[in-house]
């Protein structure tokens, strides 16, 4: 390993589902397991919520590797959220390949809630992969403007009146 490679600390984003992968992360912590500190965990309710644009944006913002960790097949809390995520990740890999960014920078892992050591293993595995692939070439151009979504025109209608019913009040805020 040369000096440049040794100095390079990859940024890895992990989208973890609450019910399996995130819980496994908690377990890994309770088990005092050490894993790569490069991994930034983003908790999501279900991997079914993952969208191609969310994954692309992570790379656009300079992530070196991104992975989505969800429940084992057939174990999804919402029955088939992880199946949808598998499709989304495969589709996004295709989108990355189209523009010439290595699709290996993106991965989907099944991490059951009981698998603390597997969580640590996947985190290390993905960090090692990012180290091997080198820095994301988009890192240097994060702040370079290249266009945006245009603001929608105001339709000229007055804003809706503020709702007076159905407001959510925290239990502690309720006056007894």
């Amino acid at each position, binding site marked *: 390993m040369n000096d440049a490679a040794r100095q390079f600390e990859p940024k890895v984003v992990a989208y973890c589902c609450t019910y399996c992968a995130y819980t496994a992360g908690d377990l890994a912590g309770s088990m005092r397991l050490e894993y790569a500190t490069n991994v930034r965990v983003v908790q999501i309710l279900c991997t079914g919520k993952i969208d191609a644009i969310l994954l*692309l944006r992570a790379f656009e913002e300079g992530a070196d590797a991104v992975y989505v960790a969800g429940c084992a097949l057939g174990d999804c809390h919402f029955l088939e959220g992880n199946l949808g995520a598998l499709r989304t990740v495969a589709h996004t890999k295709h989108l990355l390949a189209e523009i010439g960014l290595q699709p290996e920078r993106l991965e989907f892992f099944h991490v059951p809630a009981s698998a603390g050591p597997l969580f640590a293993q996947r985190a290390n595995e993905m960090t090692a992969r990012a180290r091997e692939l080198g820095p994301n070439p988009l890192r240097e151009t994060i702040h370079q403007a290249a*266009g945006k979504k245009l603001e*929608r*025109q105001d339709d000229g209608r007055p804003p809706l009146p503020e709702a007076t019913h159905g407001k959510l009040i925290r239990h502690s805020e309720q006056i007894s």
Partner: protein
Amino acid sequence: MIVGERKPLEQIEAMLEGFDKILIVGCGTCVAVSMAGGEKEVEELAVQLRMKDKLEGRKRTIDEITVTRQCDREYLEVLAKHLDNYDVVLSMACGAGVQFLAERYDDKIVLPALNTLFIGVAEDAGVWTQRCMACEDCILDQTGGICPMTICPKNLLNGPCGGTNGGKCEVDGEKDCAWTLIYRKLEKLGRLDYMRKIQPPKDYSVMTKPGKYTHQAFKETQENEEE
């Protein structure tokens, strides 16, 4: 609904060659449902193009906006205040939307980002099939709600040809024979006698392109205006 698919990125890049300021305009109706040209797909394509530019060291401006529909004049008006800033407009609508946008802003270059496929239905998640070919003379009442004009490659109106084989079509063994489907459906409905009715030769003259249609309610007012 009208089903479309996005052109390969290579083809889109080839069209955009030489333009520096690009506006991608999405369409929030049919092609949004067929996962080809809605707000989400516009965002995906814009991010892809921006990332590709940065990877290749190019500096272009790629902005994005999605309108409710590109086949209605009123929805195209919102673009008026933006378009002066761009060299080219990349429309993610069906062919009709692209043309209407190009007609409204006739001093702009408007490019298509999609290939328009057909009028179809959502068969499954992410799968669409053609169900209507807009023949302008619907006979679904006679065929149990199954269209032989669309499903039969030979457009046969009076029963199957000799090539029907175990319910499949001789043109493509993967595809169903329209007339087998119709027979089974009519049998289920207890209306097999419909099979005996002879359909007169199809009047293809009504299918002459390009179609134009004025609603009855608007015909008289238009005539009065002309007078």
